[in-house]
C-alpha cells in the first residue's frame, strides 16, 4: 500500500522464513555486541553499576553465550536452507557475485559523482547487498570459531587463546561498525526509505523502491507473471475447448 493513497503494487522481498532468520540474527547480534563490549568498559563506567556489578557481569556472560548459540544455529540453518529449499536456492543463485556487479559498482559510483545520467539497472541484490551478505559469512566464521575456542579455553594453549581473543575483538568491532554505517544507514536513513525499510517486518517492497533499486528484478518478476498468466489463459482456453 502506498502512503500517497493510490494503490501501489508491492512485491515479496523477504519470505516468512527469511524474516524469522533475520530477526534471530539481528537480536542475537545486538545482544552479542552489547554484552561483548561490556568487557571493554572503563573502570569508572563499570563502577557506576555499584554492587549490582557482579550480577550484571554474571548475566552478561550467560546472555553472550545464549546469543552466541542462537547466532551459530541460525547461520548453520541458513547454510542448509540455501542448499535444500527452493526459495533458499533461488536466494543463493541471485546472490552469487557476477561480473556485472563490478560493472554496476563502477557505473554507480560514476553516477553518484555526477558523471552519468542514471544509475545502472540492478537485479534482485545490488553489489552492496552481496558484499554485506558475504561479509556476514566471513565474519561469522571468525567469531564463531574463536568464540568456541574461548568457551572451551582449557583445551587450547594460552597463545592460541590470545590470538582468538584478538581476532574475536577485531572482527566484532569491524562487524559492529560495518552494520551501523553500512546496514542501519541503508535500511533506515536512506532518504527514500526513512524512517525504515519495512520489508524486514512485512516482507513487502514497493514498486517505487523496486524501480529505484532493483529494476531488473522487477522486469524478471513481470516476465514471470506474464508467462504464468499466458499459461493460465492457455489452460482456460484448453478447458473451454474441452467443454
Amino acid at each position, binding site marked *: 500500500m502506498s502512503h500517497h493513497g493510490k494503490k501501489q503494487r508491492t512485491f515479496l522481498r523477504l519470505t516468512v522464513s527469511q524474516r524469522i532468520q533475520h530477526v534471530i540474527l539481528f537480536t542475537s547480534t545486538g545482544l552479542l555486541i552489547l554484552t561483548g563490549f561490556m568487557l571493554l568498559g572503563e573502570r569508572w563506567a563499570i563502577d557506576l*553499576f555499584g554492587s549490582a556489578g557482579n550480577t*550484571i557481569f554474571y548475566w552478561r556472560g550467560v546472555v553472550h553465550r545464549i546469543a552466541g548459540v542462537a547466532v551459530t544455529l541460525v547461520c548453520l540453518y541458513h547454510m542448509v536452507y540455501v542448499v535444500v529449499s527452493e526459495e533458499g536456492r533461488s536466494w543463493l543463485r541471485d546472490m552469487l557475485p557476477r561480473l556485472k556487479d563490478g560493472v554496476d559498482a563502477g557505473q554507480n559510483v560514476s553516477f553518484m559523482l555526477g558523471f552519468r545520467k542514471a544509475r545502472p539497472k540492478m537485479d534482485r541484490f545490488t553489489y552492496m547487498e552481496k558484499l554485506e551478505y558475504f561479509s556476514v559469512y566471513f565474519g561469522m566464521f571468525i567469531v564463531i570459531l574463536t568464540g568456541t575456542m574461548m568457551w572451551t579455553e582449557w583445551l587450547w594453549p594460552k597463545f592460541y587463546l590470545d590470538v582468538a581473543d584478538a581476532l574475536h575483538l577485531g572482527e566484532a568491532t569491524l562487524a559492529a561498525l560495518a552494520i551501523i*554505517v553500512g546496514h542501519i544507514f541503508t535500511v533506515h536513513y536512506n532518504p527514500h526509505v526513512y524512517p525504515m525499510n519495512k520489508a524486514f517486518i512485512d516482507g513487502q517492497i514497493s514498486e517505487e523502491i523496486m524501480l529505484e533499486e532493483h529494476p531488473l528484478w522487477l522486469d524478471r518478476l513481470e516476465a514471470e507473471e506474464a508467462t504464468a498468466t499466458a499459461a493460465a489463459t492457455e489452460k482456460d482456453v484448453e478447458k473451454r475447448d474441452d467443454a
Partner: protein
Amino acid sequence: MINRVYFTVCCILSGVILLGAPNSVYATDDENCLMCHKYAGLGRYGKDENQNAKKRVFYVNEEQYKASYHGKLRCKSCHDGVEEIPHTDVEAVNCAKDCHLKDPSTGRDFSHKAIKKDLDFSAHGYKGSRTDEHMEDLPNCKDCHSNKAYQIGMDEQIASMKFIKICLECHESKEWTERFYRHMFYRASTRRSSKEVVALCSKCHADQAMMERHDLDVVVGFKDTFHGKAIVYGDEEVANCLNCHAPYGLGFSPHRVKSSRDDVSPVSPEHKLETCAQQGCHAGAKEEFASKGKVHASLQSAGRQARAGEEVSQAELAFQTWVLNLINLIYKILIVGVVGGLGMHRLLDLYASRRASKMGGHH
C-alpha cells in the same frame, strides 16, 4: 586561710579529673595513654626513610580501637619504651614479639613470629628476596595490614543475636563472647575483595621505578584480562593475584609467596597446570593451556633480557607479540578501509539523491 586554699585546690583538681577523664577511659586504658591521645589534633610532621616530610597522627579513637583486632591489647603490649614524656625513648613496633596474651590453642604466649619468619623467607622478605639491594622497598606487616575493625555481614550479625544468647548460657562476659563470635565469623569469610587484593598488590607491582630496581616486570596487563575485567565488575569467582601466586589450596599463603622464577612457585612451568586447574577453575586443562603464553602482559615483557628459568623464551615472546600486533594492525586497516568505504559510499549516495531531487529528476 590555709584550709580555704587547700579546699579550693582540691575542688579544682577533682574538677579537672572528673571533667578531663570520662568513665569509659578507665575501662581498658589503665595506662592512661588516652589522657593525651584522645585529642584529635595530636600529631606532628616527621620525616620518612627518604627524608620526606611525613604527617604523623598520634590520635587514637577509643571506640574504633576497642572494636579493632587488637582492641583488647594494652598500648604498651606493642609500643615498647614510652616511659618518658615526651616519648623520646619509643621504639618501632615489632610485630614478631611475644604478646602477653595467651594463645588458647597452646596456652603459651601468642606471637606473630612464625608468620613473620615465613614472610622473611618469601619473595617479599629480606632472606627470600633475590637481591640484597633496596631492602627498603620490601613490604613490612603494616604495608598490607592495618588494625581494622571486625566487619561481619548483616546476616551474621542478625544470627549472632540468637547465637550469642546460647554462648552466654555458659560464658559470663558478654563483651568477650561478642568479640569471639565476630573474630570467628570475620576470619571465616574472605576478608579482602578481589578488587582490594589487586589494588594492594598494585601499590608496588604497578610502580615502574620500583619494579625496575628489582628486575621485575611492571604488571600493567592484568586489568585488560578477562580475570581483571570480571574483578572490576565485582566478581569474586575469578582469580585475583593471590589465587594464582599464593593459593591456600596448594599449600601457599600470601606470607609464603615465591618468585615466579622459583621452581616451587605455583606459577612456575612445573606447577602452573595444577594452579590453573585448582578449585575447578580450568578443570581438565591440558598441559598446553598452561604453557607457552603470558597470563598478563607486562610492560617490559618484550625486549628485555631473558632470565634463567623463564618459561616463554624471548624469541617466542617476541613472535607472539608480533603476531598479536599484526592481527590488531590488519583489523585497524580493515576497519578504516571497510567502514570508511561504506561511509563514503553512503555520503555519495546522499549527495546523488539530493542532486537528483533538486533537478526534479527523482521520479
